[in-house]
């Protein structure tokens, strides 16, 4: 069976839980930016959590089904419609052959996850169906969807009417705190600059995608004076090109922080102030441009506690759906 792409949306791509293991050759792990929503969408339609889904950004696609299927939409509030009739989010519903799935305007969040029973059945490349657009790898022909595409879908056994209660979906605050472990090249900025970095309210810039999220509006950083090391380049924010962790916060020229996300560039020559903790990566995926955000320093112990909380939350939701 297949779904036909009538309109593709803004940037809709095939994603799953990612392709770890190739970062050393510059291929990022990718996968749904909001891992929680990716897993739950799959479970709602009776798939394994790691099946491939469609990730839609800001604007949903319009799809036509060639066979009956069960569908669920999670993540940002992007209301699904079947032949024009609205369906709930976070709840599975059925579609018949010839039905059209479209979407209303995004009400909150930034990305929706569309799971179809049986999973999107594109070829597995390097262990994953995830699309890495920059490297034209995996997914559907290594790119975002276009009108006219026919996306293969596997055979599944989903049932309609399964839903995840609101209290199990995780919170989505409009003003956002991004917890971060300071480090790596934190020592390159002055104490006063470090203090201001955490005090300032930043805003998500329009340049925010799967590679990274840029933030604007805070105070430019003041660097500790030094003679630049050989090979680093002349700007005080330059370092000898190094690896970039997922979630790392780089600040080119000290002006606008960029938080690298699932399709991160794997390395480069800009100093990093630290790394946003794993528990807050999903949250970044749901930030719209202009959303105010604040970076909050945490210790490694706090980061691990937040990670454990996040895991508990996911386990509760998964237990509810698989019980």
């Amino acid at each position: 069976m297949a779904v036909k792409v009538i309109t593709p949306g803004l940037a809709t791509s095939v994603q799953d839980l990612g392709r770890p293991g190739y970062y050393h050759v510059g291929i990022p792990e990718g996968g749904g930016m909001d891992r929680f929503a990716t897993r739950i969408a799959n479970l709602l339609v009776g798939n394994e959590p790691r099946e491939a889904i469609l990730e839609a950004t800001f604007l949903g696609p319009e799809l036509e089904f060639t066979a009956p299927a069960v569908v669920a939409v999670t993540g940002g509030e992007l209301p699904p419609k079947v032949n024009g009739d609205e369906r709930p989010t976070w709840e599975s519903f059925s579609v018949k052959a010839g039905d059209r799935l479209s979407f209303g305007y995004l009400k909150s969040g930034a990305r929706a996850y569309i799971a179809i029973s049986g999973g999107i059945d594109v070829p597995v490349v390097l262990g994953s169906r995830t699309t890495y657009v920059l490297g034209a790898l995996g997914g559907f022909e290594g790119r975002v969807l276009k009108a006219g595409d026919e996306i293969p879908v596997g055979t599944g056994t989903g049932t309609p009417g399964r839903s995840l209660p609101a209290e199990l979906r995780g919170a989505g605050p409009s003003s956002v705190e991004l917890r971060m472990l300071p480090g790596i090249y934190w020592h390159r900025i002055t104490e006063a600059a470090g203090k201001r970095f955490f005090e300032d309210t930043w805003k998500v810039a329009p340049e925010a995608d799967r590679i990274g999220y840029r933030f604007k509006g805070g105070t430019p950083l003041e660097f500790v004076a030094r003679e630049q090391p050989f090979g680093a380049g002349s700007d005080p924010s330059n370092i000898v090109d190094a690896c970039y962790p997922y979630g790392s916060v780089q600040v080119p020229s000290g002006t606008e922080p960029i938080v690298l996300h699932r399709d991160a560039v794997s390395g480069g020559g800009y100093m990093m102030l630290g790394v946003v903790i794993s528990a807050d990566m999903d949250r970044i995926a749901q930030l719209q441009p202009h959303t105010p955000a604040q970076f909050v320093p945490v210790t490694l112990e706090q980061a691990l506690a937040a990670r454990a909380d996040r895991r508990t939350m996911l386990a509760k939701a998964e237990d509810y759906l698989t019980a």
Partner: protein
Amino acid sequence: MSIRFNFGGDEHIFGEVSEDMSLASFFTGLSMINAVRTAGIRGVTETCPANASFQIRFDPDVIAPQDLLKELQSMEDAASKSDATLKTRIIELPVYFQDPWTHETEMRFRERHQDPSATDLEYSARINGYATIEEFIAAYSGQPWFVSMVGFVAGLPWLYQMVERKKQIEAPKYLRPRTDTPKLTVGHGGCFAAIYSVRGAGGYQMYGVTPAPIYDPTRKVRYLTEDMALFKPGDIVKFKAINRDEYDATLEEIDANRWQPTVRDCSFSLTEFNRDMLGTNTNLMELLNGR
């Protein structure tokens, strides 16, 4: 030399061998990565060598961050004392310098450059003390380069020229990054050359293009059927300057999937290299000529 370790959030450990670039630092980083790979530590999910640093990714649900840090620290002594020899290979890569495509691209982004009145090659030749572009290109393609890191995007190599520090070519990155760089551009930033494996944004000075694909996600290019990326850290690369006719002829061979780069196995010893750089390089380059 003592490695500066730091946690990158709850899933990464970052190790900086030195702030400045040197082959000795690269080798220490690579030895660390090889030691971690050999040890097969449970919970380690990614091992990435870089120019003068490295990064380990791990699952803190499997191994406690502090335990992994202790294991890494216990490997440090052996890594910094390792004899820095490599079984590797030398690859000859044709490059068409002063090509029309990077020229057209740099003209579109002139206002983002340090010297809008000069080309990237004119500017780089001047600030590195070369009287002409031809002399600059001769220096660029006359001595081999070491692949000291792969990444940024899929298969992109960073290259460090195998000459003494005072002969190293240095150039700043663009004042503001370009939004476009032709595919397979040979560029330069800091002391590093890079080959852009795919078209996209970039901030390095642009000098030329190679006709040879270095990354093929479809694995159809005959020399990229096994590994989709040509370069690995530790590879040695010699640029061969070619003209337009040679570029077109090579491209025709590549399109017919008949072409492959000249590659020779070799060994490299850092001690030997430091004792006689030009002699070591001459021996390496002779391998390419079949001698």
